[in-house]
């Protein structure tokens, strides 16, 4: 089976899932996965429970927010850069209006009519 490499950045408290690549405030690692793997497969590979992540990017496209994770079945591509944030991290609407997001996220925000809001429902 063909393999692919994903460039993974774990920020804040998530750096603890970075293994040897762990720095105090982030971890930067290369993760090798079979071609066709999804976000769900990536999280399983690094042992990160999906509920522990907040804002997520796949190659500069917003793919998840705390409490809103439409990207679990998103198929990753070789060379994708995935950025995973601690749920405490934030991106106020004021500063993301008009920014790029993956199709699953765009759909989810429009369906729930929350496009103008901060989706932090999952945050305690």
């Amino acid at each position, binding site marked *: 089976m063909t393999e692919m490499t994903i460039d993974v*950045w774990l*920020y*804040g408290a998530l750096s603890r899932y970075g293994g040897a690549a762990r*720095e*105090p*405030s*982030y971890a*930067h690692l290369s993760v090798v996965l079979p071609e066709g793997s999804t976000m769900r497969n990536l999280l399983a590979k690094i042992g990160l429970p999906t509920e522990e992540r907040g*804002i997520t*990017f796949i*190659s*500069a496209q*917003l793919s998840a927010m*705390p409490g809103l994770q439409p990207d679990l079945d998103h198929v990753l591509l070789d060379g994708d*850069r995935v*950025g995973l*944030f*601690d749920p*405490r*991290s*934030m*991106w*106020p*609407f*004021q*500063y*993301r*209006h*008009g*920014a*790029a997001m993956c199709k699953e996220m765009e759909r989810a925000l429009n369906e729930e009519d929350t*496009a*103008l*809001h*901060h989706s*932090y429902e999952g*945050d305690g």
Partner: protein
Amino acid sequence: MWIVRVDMSDRSYRLQDVSAAYKLLGGRGLTSTIVSEEVPPLCHPLGPNNKLVFAPGIVTGTSAATSARISVGGKSPLTGGIKEANAGSSWAPAVANLGIKAIVVEGQPKDKDKYWLIHLTWDAQAGKPKLEFLPADEYTGKDLYEVFPKLYARFGVKANIAACGVAGEYGYGNSGVCFNDMHQAPTRYSGRGGLGSVMASKGLKAIVADATGGPGVTIVDKALFDQGRKKLADALRSHAITKPKGGLNSYGTAILINILNEAGGLPTRNFSSGRFEGAAKIAGEAIFEGNKQRLGKELYNHACSPGCIIQCSNTWYGKDGKEQVSCQEYESVWSLGANCGIDDLDVTGELIRLCNAYGLDTIEAGTTLGVAMAAGVIPFGDGKGAIKLLHEMGKGTPQGRILGAGTATTGRVYGVTNVPVVKGQSMPAYEPRAVKGIGITYATSTMGADHTAGYTICPEILSVGGKADPLSPEGKAALSRAFQATTAFIDSTGHCLFIAFAILDIPSGFEGMVEEANAVLGANWTGDDVVKVGSAILKKERAFNEAAGIGKEADRMPEFMKLEPLPPHNQVFDVPDAALDSVYGEL
């Protein structure tokens, strides 16, 4: 309440009753109204006809949460248009508690080399505020970290200080008005647009305010105020972004460095990329962990001013465990870090400290250094060189004066085409080619490029955007218009704009903000009035700019952003001119 009129030509003052027309105004609404009615739009910003106006917000000085903002207005030496810059500081409630709605500084002394300070106190016998004019030459030409302790030693710990730094004395387009933080340090700035120079041009070095004995702020309807105050405070305490140990309190505004970097929207090396490889080293998470390592404990952020629930200000500790600077804000760490190719928090900390010391706006300083680096004056990433250039600005050397004039002037002097400014003011830390919504606001704001010009709250209540598709250029323009009006309202209340994060999502918090303002003023505003009141302010600002020769032709992004695709999205700024024109055309 009074409006204090200060004439610096003869150092006199008078207390004026607040006219009916000004009764419902405060903060930005009041400073922009006074400037638009009294300052000739074509006057020289540093000449005798410009005025410098200070106004606390409508609820500033009350127990309303996160409301210690002071608005400063005048004609900007940087943009040539109207300017409003606000800051959080105990100075704001002190002035409000003296019964003062605004201080209007007018005129200019004949002797250009003399400086004065105003000591503002409560005259219990007369039952009104009192101003004394004292010689201030001993405080000029100095680092503000040296000046503030001297003023506190002289006037006592109850003093609150507004001052300009040497950048103002030199007449730089980049010069802020500096206010004290909660530790009496010179770190809180009405930074943008060069108002520090307007202050210095009047021979005014500082206004030292002491509210002891003052009458406080009158609240017309106390029960309504308490109700509104509670609603808003509850919203701030419960929202993930603004609550204690939430996003802002833990990581500060620099929490956005890694986020914008992953989004491909962190302007890097003079806006040549949306990604900085060193971002993780200068982000909010790195500040939090760096302090933890150096102090041996977790350090959460503090309030910049009294009564703030959000508490987003950080302090950076040096290698020796001693305080280096407050505050490593997102915009400052970005402008002096990523935008200059610098990935070291000790270097950005020193650059921020120097901006505070000299009276410079950190955003304009960092974008100026970025343009100087693009010109080859020093290489990108050269921290020592950047520190040296800020010292040149502080010393007022010929090169320092070029840089102090701002990003646009520096670009002209060095022949740089990629100069990230609108209306002469440089862009903050959101790449408009990646985050296009904010680009529309940068282009059209009355203030020049400004990230604080377009905040939104409770879209259901405001019905922002109208019928236009919010993803179309017309829809984005309609949203930008509503956001700018909303912002003008919040800037008038005296609340920090960051309350908008919570009251975008929590309608009762939004109601609380309106109720507080109604309670103080005896007004009857509804949610719908927020955009109307804000729009009225924008119209005045826009009319001033048009009369100053800054019309819709100035509502444009710099050409390079329309021509050069920005990695990693490889997009240009492609919002059509017609959409930009509709923002104010349909106001």
